[in-house]
């Protein structure tokens, strides 16, 4: 019981922020935090695929980007954001099933999988930057090449395209969605299927010898992570009002990886916190123009790998555990902290 309460604490805190935020925060902060949440949702997708299933997907941004573009094109054409969010979530799933079939059925090793997925997102980047010609259009939306798609309508009330949602309402939706994604992935991870996925991460050979079709589980998990990333992409685009090929580029792809490593591979709370922290840092640094943000991120990733290879969440858990031991003399086996 206590464990359940502990697990519900984080999503509960998010819900609390979602409901109280509009009354205490400035509109500028609301917009920023909404965008951060959308990114954090996408990061959760990678935290699941990599942390739970062991799929080292360096090109997670491809799902995020497809979701973002799908939303932009759909909402500009149809005018209704609800359907656009749905399309932006499902299209990455379709793409992940095609890509995943190629990757998992050919039994690629970790490193090759990482390289190929990274290449896939860079191919999308390269393609989207070369669509400046008006010939590249879907419906009445030109893809816009390097400038991307602009003037994208934001979220509206379901089935009522005229009623655009306020900044406050969008903020609440983004944070509630983040809490929802967190709960959904936590439930999947603790289900029997999720435990089999964890087992596959631990040993593919043993799982196969026990009779589990590892390609099937990987494909399903990959598709789920794509759906979450695409969903994050739709919210992000709805917030920003534009999308450009940079959603597919190398800095974007590496950011998701950085957040998951820094937050703690195999955890969900850590990557969310890390994504907020790094985006905050990025916007501050970007405003100052003193340092090159990518340089800072590169240094951070090196530091994390060297000093806290397990990431923030496991590290904090261990420190908290040590303090408890010191204070109350409670002996808890080390493994529990991790």
């Amino acid at each position, binding site marked *: 019981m206590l464990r359940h309460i502990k697990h519900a604490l984080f999503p509960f805190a998010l819900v609390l922020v979602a409901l109280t935020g509009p009354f205490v925060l400035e509109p500028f902060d609301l917009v920023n935090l909404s965008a951060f949440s959308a990114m954090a949702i996408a990061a959760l997708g990678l935290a699941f695929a990599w942390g739970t299933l062991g799929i080292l997907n360096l090109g997670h941004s491809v799902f995020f980007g497809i979701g973002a573009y799908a939303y932009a094109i759909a909402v500009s054409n149809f005018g209704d954001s609800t359907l656009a969010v749905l399309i932006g979530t499902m299209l990455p799933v379709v793409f992940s099933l095609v890509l995943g079939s190629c990757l998992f059925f050919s039994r690629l090793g970790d490193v090759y999988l990482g390289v190929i997925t990274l290449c896939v997102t860079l191919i999308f980047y390269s393609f989207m930057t070369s669509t400046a010609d008006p010939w590249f259009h879907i419906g009445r939306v030109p893809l816009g090449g390097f400038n991307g798609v602009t003037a994208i309508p934001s979220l509206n009330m379901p089935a009522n395209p005229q009623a655009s949602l306020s900044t406050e309402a969008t903020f609440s939706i983004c944070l509630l969605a983040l809490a929802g994604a967190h709960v959904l992935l936590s439930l999947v991870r603790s289900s*029997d299927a999720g*435990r*089999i996925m*964890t*087992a596959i991460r*631990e*040993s593919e*050979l*043993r*799982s*196969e*010898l*026990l*009779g*589990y*079709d*590892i390609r099937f589980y990987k494909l399903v998990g990959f598709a789920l992570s794509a759906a979450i990333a695409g969903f994050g992409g739709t919210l992000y685009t709805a917030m920003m009002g534009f999308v450009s090929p940079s959603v597919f580029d190398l800095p974007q792809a590496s950011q998701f990886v950085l957040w998951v490593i820094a937050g703690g591979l195999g955890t969900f709370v850590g990557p969310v916190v890390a994504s907020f922290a790094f985006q905050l840092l990025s916007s501050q640094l970007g405003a100052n123009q003193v340092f090159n943000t990518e340089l800072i991120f590169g240094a951070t990733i090196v530091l994390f790998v060297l000093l806290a290879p397990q990431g923030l969440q496991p590290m904090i858990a261990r420190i908290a555990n040590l303090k408890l031991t010191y204070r109350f003399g409670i002996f808890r086996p080390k*493994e529990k902290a991790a």
Partner: protein
Amino acid sequence: MSGFPILATRGLVKRFGGVAAVDGVDLVVDVGEIRCLIGPNGAGKSTLFKCLTHQHQPTSGHVLFEGRDLQGLPTHRIARRGIAIKNQIPSIYANLDVRENIRLAALRRNLTKRELDSVVDLVLAEIGFDNLQAKRPAATLSHAHRQWCELGMLLASNPRLALLDEPTAGMTRDEMLKTVDIIKRLNARATVIVVEHDLEFIARLAQKVTVLHRGKVLVEDSMERIEANETVRDIYLGRKKDTAHAEG
């Protein structure tokens, strides 16, 4: 059960480049048997096991399990047919606790939640793990306990045929005796084929022993007769002249 032997291989061959690690093996094992497979290093014992579970694809020949050809089946489908294997190199979920290891093995059997729990409890008792040990990550176990954990996974998966590749390697005598006990429990439910070098272990378990040499079946007999067999003694000691004689 039908009149078929549980396992029959016909002219099974596995080549690695020019080397035939398994070179035309015809092996028949009957239901309920506990068969020991012995042979010097490089005789093809482990490769044979891997061919049976399609961890290696056989170059040619057939494997019939309960009379049905396994050709073309992927490894997980063979496991679903009822063949469980413990490879020579231990393969367990190192970062998961023992109970979770056992549970994952039983999970595939479509049991109710209550049945699943009781199967896991039963298996933990059979391999002699108390509650505290069952909660430890498998990586923190001693060598022998890891082997027992893997045997426990085989017990929990309820196979009809269990292949054990050197289950007592590196064990003390007491640990070996405990392993014999676990394997007897396994044999009460399943046919067992076991690769071993420990003669006492074989004497305690096997009714029938198959000697493999250079990828072929050399002799198949009771343990006493095998021990008395000059050819078998020669190949273990590496006397070449007599080996050639045996093959000729």
